[in-house]
């Protein structure tokens, strides 16, 4: 069993304090499915194995493809939940600008609607989103750039986000990280 990580695309649909008394025991409302949609009938996840450094590297690698500084909200879960949902996991290379992170990439593949619903139910009942605020995300990207994990030119940040990133990078290179 391994520990997997997935960044949520639409975390605002995760269950909050709305009245869910109508939801039968062991089921979840439909809205969270929009946080967990498949792409090409698969789900990209990263094997992080309870390693905080890996989690940070994955956040930086994925957030480097964003246009602006923003929160990253992600799930950490055991691969046993995927097995329980009856879905195969395949090792496939990731598409991030961090080559090492790409090696940790897995596809939860052959996702059908019913498999997705089963997995989503297990995740909502067993996990909670964890946050990495935008400022910290920028720091993590800066760290990956300075460490040589991500080429600076492959970070898509623009405008004020880019300026913040460049300040962070400069501070790290001068030996004075915030």
């Amino acid at each position: 069993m391994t520990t997997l990580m997935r960044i949520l695309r639409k975390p605002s649909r995760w269950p909050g304090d709305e009245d869910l008394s109508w939801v039968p025991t062991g089921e979840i409302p439909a809205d969270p499915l929009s946080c967990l949609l498949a792409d090409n009938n698969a789900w990209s996840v990263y094997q992080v194995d309870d390693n905080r450094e890996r989690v940070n590297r994955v956040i930086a690698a994925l957030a480097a493809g964003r246009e602006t500084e923003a929160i990253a909200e992600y799930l950490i879960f055991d691969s046993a939940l995927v097995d329980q949902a009856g879905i195969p996991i395949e090792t496939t290379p990731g598409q991030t600008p961090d080559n090492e992170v790409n090696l940790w990439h897995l596809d939860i593949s052959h996702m059908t609607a019913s498999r997705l619903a089963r997995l989503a139910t297990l995740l909502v009942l067993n996990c909670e989103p964890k946050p990495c605020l935008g400022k910290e995300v920028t720091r993590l990207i800066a760290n990956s750039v300075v460490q040589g994990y991500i080429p600076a030119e492959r970070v898509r940040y623009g405008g004020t986000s880019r300026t913040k990133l460049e300040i962070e990078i400069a501070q790290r290179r001068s030996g004075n990280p915030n």
Partner: protein
Amino acid sequence: MTAYAPTSETYPGVWGIVEVDEPDVVQETLAVAGLPLIQEPVASTVDQAQGYYLYSPNLGVWRHGLSKHELTARQPAATFLPSVHNFVVNLERSKSQHQHRQLVRTNAPGNITVLGKTYASQSDALRAALIQTRSLGNVIRILALRATASSLLEAARGEDFETGFRSRLSAKVERFVAHHGEQAVKSLVAAVVANSSDPDVVVEVLTTLGQIVSPDTKQQRRQSLVASLNDNRAQVRRGALIGLSHLDDSSVIADVKRVIDAEKIRWVKSIAIALWEQLAPKNV
């Protein structure tokens, strides 16, 4: 929200009628502007008015009783302005009398009575009314901003938001705040509080309020985001926390601590904890 043409002298000092979905907001707005509320019973207003209908805090009742369509059916001669927003925006742009007349000429003409005088055109009537009740114009401006804020949120329903990518809504919110300043911020947050359906829209607006780079509105944005921490919906509190994380202002740390102590939804609480760590890393 809809604006109606001027009232008759039956209601001196009032020239415009605004129908809104939130009577409480109107009452609050009038109170801020120092204007008295007119406590007319709805039924008698409808019976006595001469084709034009008076704003009153009883609009909640009125709204249930008479729609714009029904008002028009009762009084076919009534003339309706396109909207308060269009009127105010055009009025602000109209620096010369010529432009002003050109604006109103698009509406059907009619004999309109304002404070005892009858005018042959809406433009004359509105100008006369505005001169006499300028403060009400400010109120209508505020109401128009609130209506615009609501329409921004409404138009964004169904937009596909993705974290870390600029949305059409966030661009509109930025422009709205840039043009209208603190009142726009208040209007947006009021619209967010009233918006009960789309959590993505709510979070996008609150996040954008934190991201705007403008010292002019920073205090109001901070106050509005802090006030949103008290909302009874987790997604609004989450959005406010994310907005505050972009604002990155350590003066709100006590408010964030209060959320940490009170928050029942653990994944929202974890955002508050992360924000507290961001704002006071050296105190940990």
